[in-house]
């Protein structure tokens, strides 16, 4: 049994790594917290003096332990931020060199994909379109212009650990690099009306030469 869907993108493993990192730290933290809660309950704290219970003066030292707890959590927190910062910048803030360029447009309730025509450029008259099926080549940097037509949708590719909301009137360019061939689902993760549940598309990741053949087929149509 696997927890995540099979990873099929270049940065998917980094996202999973952050999950396992946080899981490791909070497992240790949870064991400590469970001990801290259960110990006084199970032992019932019998035979303490009133001074110990009232804990003013000397007994009040424990507050420093709370600062220690906060400090440990702060260190762990900033370690997470330190680890995830470069990954976030890689996925969201940078665009590697463009090798393939497609438009992904969400509308009620289907996905429309546009590829450059024979001239190799998008946003020209010879662009070709597919509905609910996106062809991508494997191991290429793919730039996706993410758009929506009517309401907010969200492009979610679980196997690539990719998600981006798409808003009407806004063009958001993100990138993905698929590392395995095969067919993967692309779903809508933001509620968009009655057909929200039916808004699913397939991503077909092909070898480079198959991708070129497929494009040629599309041009003929």
């Amino acid at each position, binding site marked *: 049994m696997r927890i995540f869907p099979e990873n099929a993108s270049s940065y998917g493993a980094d996202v999973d790594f952050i*999950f396992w990192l946080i899981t490791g730290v909070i497992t240790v933290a949870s064991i400590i917290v*469970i001990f801290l809660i259960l110990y006084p309950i199970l032992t019932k*704290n019998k035979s*303490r003096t009133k001074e110990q219970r009232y804990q003013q003066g000397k007994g009040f030292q424990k507050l420093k332990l709370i600062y220690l707890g906060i400090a440990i*959590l702060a260190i762990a927190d900033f370690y997470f931020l330190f680890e*995830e910062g470069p*990954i976030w910048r890689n996925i969201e803030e940078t665009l590697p060199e463009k090798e393939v360029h497609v438009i992904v447009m969400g509308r009620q309730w289907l996905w429309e994909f546009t590829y450059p025509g024979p001239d190799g450029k998008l946003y020209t008259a010879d662009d070709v379109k597919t509905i609910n099926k996106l062809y991508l080549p494997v191991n290429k940097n793919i730039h996706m212009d993410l758009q929506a037509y009517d309401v907010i949708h969200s492009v979610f590719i679980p196997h690539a650990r990719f*998600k981006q909301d798409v808003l009407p009137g806004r063009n958001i360019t993100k990138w993905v690099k698929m590392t395995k061939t095969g067919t993967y689902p692309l779903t809508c*993760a933001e509620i968009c009306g009655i057909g929200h549940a039916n808004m699913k598309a397939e991503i077909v990741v092909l070898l480079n030469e198959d991708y070129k053949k497929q494009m040629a087929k599309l041009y003929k149509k």
Partner: protein
Amino acid sequence: MKITRNKWQNFIKNNLTMNTHKKHGFWHRYFFSLDHKDIGFQYMLTIFVMVSIGGFFAYVFRMHLAYPEMEVPLFGLVTNKDYNMLITNHGLIMMMWLALGMLLAVAGNYLIPIMIGTDDMAFPKLNKLSYWFFLISVILMISSFFMKRGGFGGGWTMYPPLSVGDFGYNTAYTSFKDRFFTANTFVLLAITFEFIALLMGGINFFVTTLNKRAKGMTLTKMPMIVWMINIASVLFMFSVGPLIAGAFMLLLDINAGTGFYDVYRGGDPLLWEHLFWFFGHPEVYVILLPPLGIIAEIISTNSRKPLYGYKFILNLTLIAAILSMMVWAHHQFVSGIDPRAATIFSIFTIIISLPFAGIILAYIATLWNGDLKINLPMKWAIGAITLFTLIGGFTGLYLGASVFDIYAHDTSFVVAHFHYTLFPTVIFGSFAAFYYWFGKFSGRELNKFWGNVHFWLTFIFFNGFAFPLFLLGLAGQHRRIADYRQFEFLMQDPLPLYRQIATISAVILILSQFIFIFNFFWSLKRGKKVTSDNPWESNTLEWQTASPPPHGNFAVYPEVHHGPYEYNHPDREDDFLPQNKK
């Protein structure tokens, strides 16, 4: 002649207020009473109605998710439209009416005047008016289900353009009547009325707390719950403005044909997301703080020990309240905001875990060395902090770390996370309060055996319901989908089994709340009379008067000499020291 505060208050009480001490009839008590306890009770009954509706919706859509081809008993076949409407209204009702209403309005009304030792709110009529606005909001909300175009199904976050109509700005409305009598309009109006009610309540709590405290009760001698409700009310006031403005613009977009969120006319849907979450994130702390106050009261009393670090907790709460206004965009990491901004919000989100860690550790430190009395309220309180910290709080780290949020955003992982933060605080916290203060408020006792059955069923089946959602979310199950059968990767073993476990647990969880409802109403009429006015041997002022408290709360106005948590004082023989005892 020197007029002491007590004499002055007695003079007001006897001569100037509208409240007379005669017993009122049913009509007067439930509709026109100005007594804060009666108004609290009215709020409580109204919220019971709303929770029943929200719980019923949860039952229907959970059944549909696990058994999509089945006709759900008591409802019938669930269409996609029904499904969207059910989840949306479940969210709205539970967030806006149950959580905010129960923890601000009910807890504030019952507890603040009596715990600070006064007869009533500073403005009893404003208090009454706030309940009337609340009632109007409930009526508007319920009537929104019966509109011609069906209930509102745009998600409880109401992102436009979908919240303008089923097809965004392309929705074909024929006339103003057609636009106005839609669920969208009615839900927005309902929320507006409710917020007016809560603002009136909040200002009342604040003025009452500042002006009507018993003699000798300095600010740091107030019980923690009074502080928490006041901080929550003020935080609510600070954060609600943008949402009201946003909701008004949305109302105009629907009804007057404006385009504040229509990008083709110069608006922007992202604007709503900012306005909504600028309120929406502080709101979760508005909801969280009162239960933390309730838990503080219960843990300190039942540990027979002073609350650990009173001022420390207070300072951390104030820090958290300020920080809570700087984290809203962590709901929007992948919404199309500048990814560089996400880093800043990620840092603040992670930082806000620190004050809450401090508060929870202070509560745990209160347990240590305490003479623990593990009774029913204590079970709920410990259950609440355990689940809230271990699962609700810690899973927040996954989502606060923006990288993993790319994957987990809008999946069941988020659903599981916020159920683990809200359920232990709102539901467990409310039940802790019910089992703790029921004797005071009714003069009778809740049945302990059924109380224990209720606790364990709720505790076990809440986990049975919410935990599988984490696993489903990690497997990539996205939210708000009526039917998962068409997604092959979500139908692989054991995911359908997880969905069924979650559903069966949710149904048992909902059914076990009937135990409480029966226990509550049966005990209200027939329960065993309380033998003591102070059954938990607590220090705070509400326990130093009769059960139930008379009209005006105190026969003689108390004078406060001690802090609220002086248990096991070394110089005293008893292990408790009521605040008004010299």
